[in-house]
């Protein structure tokens, strides 16, 4: 997976092709790789320990490969959608379709949670409607490339797609409702009184090699930051696979326990961790009998809402708007949890 970073001297295209071939070769040989690794160690096949190890040796390279691939592609895609360009696409739009556009742009626009407030101000100042701004702010952290890559690696494309669709739905609906409630007066006074500014975007074209470079930079930054969480999470998951009895969670988080969804959301909302830290735990919960809707609701509430985020947003929103924001988003997640448990 480090191949991309050494690709410099070959020129960007040759380097990209080499990296792609290496990636494919590695991905197609994951099973034999994990077998070979296990064979090198003095463990007896068929024991709990051996099955935990095999799970670890197979899942870790698989998830890291997928993460590298997805983050690279998203890094390139991100270079087409600067926050400034997204803002000018959304400024002055009417609510409704604009909520859909804002939530979708939230996925592809580069976003760091530490920029949430300046971004919020920039959007509102340029005349992006409040509800549309919220659709963006809800989708951007919740539906991100790390979450999608991990879901893809651990649960397959169906659940990854489902998460994508539900995350977008919650962001669109919650933003639309907040817009309907006409809560502009619950912005902090200084935000409301800021002079309007035009949404100018720098439209200069970026050459392709520079976009490839942006993809490499994203891999270095994001994969470099989250890989310890991924490895630790899979190790915990592997341990649970090997040792904790099946159906251990079924009573607590199973489909029959109606209170499990609200409880999962209640626990998840104040928690703060990134997608990389939470998904392996979700996997372990699922493997031991937790219902899918409950587990997804837990995951969404951990990623989308958090105490530190509320503290930051308090600088620009009055308490009433913050309370509305949390209530609307949490209710949406709750609904997703129940619908999932009922349908699947």
């Amino acid at each position, binding site marked *: 997976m480090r191949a991309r970073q050494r690709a410099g001297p070959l020129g960007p295209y040759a380097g990209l092709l080499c990296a792609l071939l290496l990636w494919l070769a590695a991905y197609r040989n994951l099973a034999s790789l994990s077998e070979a690794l296990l064979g090198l160690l003095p463990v007896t096949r068929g024991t709990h320990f051996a099955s935990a190890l095999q799970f670890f040796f197979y899942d870790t390279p698989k998830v890291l490969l997928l993460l590298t691939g997805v983050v690279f592609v998203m890094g390139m895609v991100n270079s087409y959608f600067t926050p400034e360009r997204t803002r000018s696409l959304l400024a002055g739009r009417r609510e409704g379709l604009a909520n859909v556009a804002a939530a979708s742009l939230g996925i592809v626009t580069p976003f*760091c949670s530490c920029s949430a407030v300046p971004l919020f*101000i920039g959007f509102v100042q340029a005349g992006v409607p409040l509800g549309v701004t919220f659709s963006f702010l809800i989708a951007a952290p919740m539906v991100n490339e790390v979450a999608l890559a991990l879901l893809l690696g651990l649960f397959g494309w169906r659940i990854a797609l489902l998460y994508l669709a539900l995350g977008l739905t919650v962001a669109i609906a919650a933003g639309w409702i907040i817009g309907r409630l006409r809560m502009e007066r619950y912005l902090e006074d200084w935000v409301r009184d800021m002079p309007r500014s035009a949404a100018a975007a720098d439209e200069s074209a970026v050459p392709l090699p520079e976009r490839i470079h942006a993809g490499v930079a994203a891999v270095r930054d994001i994969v470099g930051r989250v890989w310890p969480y991924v490895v630790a999470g899979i190790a915990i998951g592997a341990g649970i696979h090997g040792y904790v009895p099946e159906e251990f969670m079924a009573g607590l988080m199973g489909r029959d326990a109606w209170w499990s969804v609200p409880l999962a959301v209640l626990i998840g909302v104040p928690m703060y961790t990134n997608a990389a830290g939470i998904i392996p735990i979700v996997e372990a919960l699922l493997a031991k009998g937790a219902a899918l809707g409950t587990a997804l609701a837990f995951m969404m509430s951990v990623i989308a809402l958090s105490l530190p985020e509320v503290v930051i947003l308090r600088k620009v929103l009055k308490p009433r708007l913050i309370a509305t924001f949390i209530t609307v988003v949490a209710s949406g997640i709750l609904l997703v949890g129940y619908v999932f448990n009922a349908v699947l």
Partner: protein
Amino acid sequence: MKDVKVLGTGCSKCRSTIQLIEEVARERGAEIRLEKVQEIQEIARHGVMSTPGVVIDGQVVHSGGVPSRAKVEGWF
């Protein structure tokens, strides 16, 4: 003497940006006065939407992430 401001709410990327600017300025022997701006209202006033941002003598020269070393070298 250049007046350099780094805008950001104190995340790790802001700290790396400050470090990088100090390092490059020292290497090039450029005299700068470096200031860290963490106040949201001040950041908003410069019109920066994604932090860290860099302002030199009142002009926004960079926003949205740690600048590349080559870019910083171009400033001094």
